[in-house]
């Protein structure tokens, strides 16, 4: 069994390069970076455990940048999004981010993904909350086309990629592991996980991702 550690990297936390080295020296396999692009002041969705949303949710840095810093400071540590809210991101740009970090880390990237729980945050990005998991599935299917084909195209109900060319392709073949975030004790997450690569479950429901 492998061990990882997650941190909301902020401008007052340990830096990702320092944490990466500290983890690698202690036998950890991976470092995980969550993401929230922003927290809308409207706050329509309460945190899963109730109470106030922690300050770190407002302050967290971009995961692809912090994980690149961690990867450059280490040799074997895997770097993982935990989780990347792909439904809040552009599909083509995200495919290139994933392929690029997998290349510069020499194949050490783990693509943890999630559909988000914070409704108004998701909707700020123009995503329809109700169908976000369908969008996520189509995005991963489209990205897999982009990562594995010289001239990919994808025609989904929500996601469409015209026939095009883009490199780099990921270092890991056919793609980095895709690990789907799921709240524990719900069947919904299992349905997501059966469609892709692996599953990430929260042991503590009071930590919304």
């Amino acid at each position, binding site marked *: 069994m492998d061990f990882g*550690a997650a941190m909301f990297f902020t401008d*007052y936390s*340990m830096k990702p390069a320092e944490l990466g080295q500290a983890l690698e020296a*202690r036998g950890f396999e991976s470092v995980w970076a969550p993401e929230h692009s922003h927290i809308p002041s409207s706050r329509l969705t309460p945190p899963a455990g109730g109470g106030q949303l922690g300050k770190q949710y407002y302050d967290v840095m971009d995961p692809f940048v912090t994980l690149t810093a961690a990867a450059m400071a280490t040799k074997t540590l895997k770097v993982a999004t935990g989780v990347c809210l792909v439904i809040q991101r552009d599909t083509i740009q995200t495919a290139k981010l994933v392929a690029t970090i997998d290349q510069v880390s020499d194949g050490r990237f783990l693509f943890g993904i999630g559909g988000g729980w914070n409704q108004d945050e998701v909707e700020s990005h123009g995503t329809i909350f109700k169908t976000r998991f369908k969008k996520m599935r189509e995005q991963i299917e489209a990205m897999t086309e982009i990562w594995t084909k010289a001239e990919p195209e994808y025609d989904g109900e929500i996601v469409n990629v015209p026939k095009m060319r883009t490199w780099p392709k990921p270092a890991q073949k056919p793609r980095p592991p895709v690990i789907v975030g799921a709240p524990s004790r719900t069947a919904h997450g*299992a349905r997501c996980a059966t469609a892709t690569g692996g599953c990430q*479950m929260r042991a503590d429901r009071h930590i919304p991702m």
Partner: protein
Amino acid sequence: MTEFLPQFRQMAAEAGRDPAKVPITIFGSPENRDRVKRYRDQGIARVVTMLPSAPDAEVLPILDRWAALIRQTEH
């Protein structure tokens, strides 16, 4: 968490996947040796602990305790 595993593995099988080939990561694992060993014995592939967004003086002692837990779990 553990009560959910049989249902998850059944759903993976029904979706045409070999449940043994769908690795499961526990996110937000408590710092508890018995719990971590139980996850290992149940075939969990990876446990991830959530660290505070804090400087090294607060974080490194947590990592040192986990390093001991990692060694104890391996043996």
